[in-house]
């Protein structure tokens, strides 16, 4: 074995950041898919929340059609929020998070991969299923593209911001409701522009502005959120 006391002058060059990202993404998806039973939970929750409104308020088609954009978005938002707690918890509990924080590789990349994997299994699925559920709320057909596009652009931001809350509370034993308190105010802009997009689609107005705003929020989130998430993870593990 080589003498280990001197400063290592030559180190094997890092594999590319892209390689790390793909490895992290694969690992997350593999872990989630091996726990198949939990995959459908956000979806079922989404369906149930939507069902509450006709039951709790009124099943009248004209009335529901008016509520539809808001209700669908709020349900998607809550479904995403509920699944955030588990994002880092298992890694925190078995010590994998510690090893991740001790890696010389940039945390930013791995965090982004984790959030992307989470979105693929919650937000993306909700986006694809939303039109079917929107039919139950009598959302007009013209609103469907607006619904899908706004969810497609908005739910990744929800995952990113929710991950900040998850990272801040991962050290606590009961993170559940606290994450909602921390994150819901931050979700409001996405909610406003998302429902705005759906409304615009329903009334035949152009969607471009709303989608651009949602895209801008996503860009901001994708660049800044991983920094906050990394800082929050280090703080949670430190304490």
């Amino acid at each position: 074995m080589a003498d280990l006391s001197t400063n290592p002058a030559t180190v094997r060059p890092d594999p590319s950041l892209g390689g790390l990202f793909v490895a992290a993404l694969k690992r997350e998806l593999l872990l989630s898919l091996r726990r198949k039973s939990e995959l459908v939970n956000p979806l079922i929750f989404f369906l149930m929340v939507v069902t509450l409104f006709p039951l709790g308020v009124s099943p009248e088609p004209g009335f529901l059609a008016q509520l539809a954009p808001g209700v669908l978005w709020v349900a998607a938002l809550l479904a995403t929020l509920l699944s955030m707690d588990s994002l880092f918890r298992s890694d925190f509990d078995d010590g994998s998070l510690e090893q991740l924080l001790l890696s010389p590789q940039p945390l930013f990349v791995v965090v982004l991969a984790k959030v992307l994997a989470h979105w693929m299994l919650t937000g993306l699925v909700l986006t694809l299923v939303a039109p079917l559920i929107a039919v139950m709320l009598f959302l007009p057909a013209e609103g469907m593209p607006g619904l899908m596009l706004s969810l497609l652009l908005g739910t990744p931001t929800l995952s990113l911001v929710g991950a900040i809350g998850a990272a801040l509370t991962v050290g606590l034993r009961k993170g559940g409701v606290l994450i909602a308190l921390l994150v819901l105010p931050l979700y409001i802009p996405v909610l406003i522009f998302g429902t705005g997009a759906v409304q615009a689609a329903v009334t035949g107005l152009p969607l471009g502005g709303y989608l651009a705003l949602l895209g801008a929020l996503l860009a901001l989130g994708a660049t800044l959120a991983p920094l906050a998430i990394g800082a929050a993870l280090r703080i949670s593990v430190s304490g």
Partner: protein
Amino acid sequence: MSGALLKVEKLFCERDERVLFDDLSFEIRSGEIVQVEGANGSGKTTLLRILSGLSRNYEGEIYWRGEPLAAVREQFHRELLYFGHQPGVKALLTAEENLHWYCALHPALDPARIAQALQQVGLEGFEDVACHMLSAGQQRRVSLARLYLNDAPLWILDEPFTAIDKGGVAAQEALIARHVAAGGSVVLTTHQDLQGVEALRRINLDQQSGT
């Protein structure tokens, strides 16, 4: 090369209103084994977590190869192997998959050595078994396999011999001795009586805690 690898100056840490250690200073040089001793709850794990950079709740200075730790964090992480209280092993992944991920996190490691590492901890034949189907001792051995993969100069080991049988303990002691002979350093806590290991320095935390 005689400079200290890791140098700790006037370390102060308190938790739950209790001072764990105060004005603690020591150095770790290459080729040294340092055992941190103390009663349960005296802060051994906390000290190890501070040394590895996981915990930042302390006052005092820590230097790696002469530079403040905060300035050389990335290099420090390249040269550190931390074996913590929890195995850091995902139950849903196989032993091989866990170690592959470890190699992704530490790019200087060679994934081709994974099979041999698993063999040396006695898990040959269990490489593609999901870890939740292994016993607790076997899961810890998956984590210990990292010691055979990672040649990092500094090893910080928190209770590495827990749930390992006598033969395994002897093998680990030999491994530690080899590592130190090649110039590496080891900081560890253990309840075991270390027999095969020479040149042992001890730091006793019970004598360190402030009033």
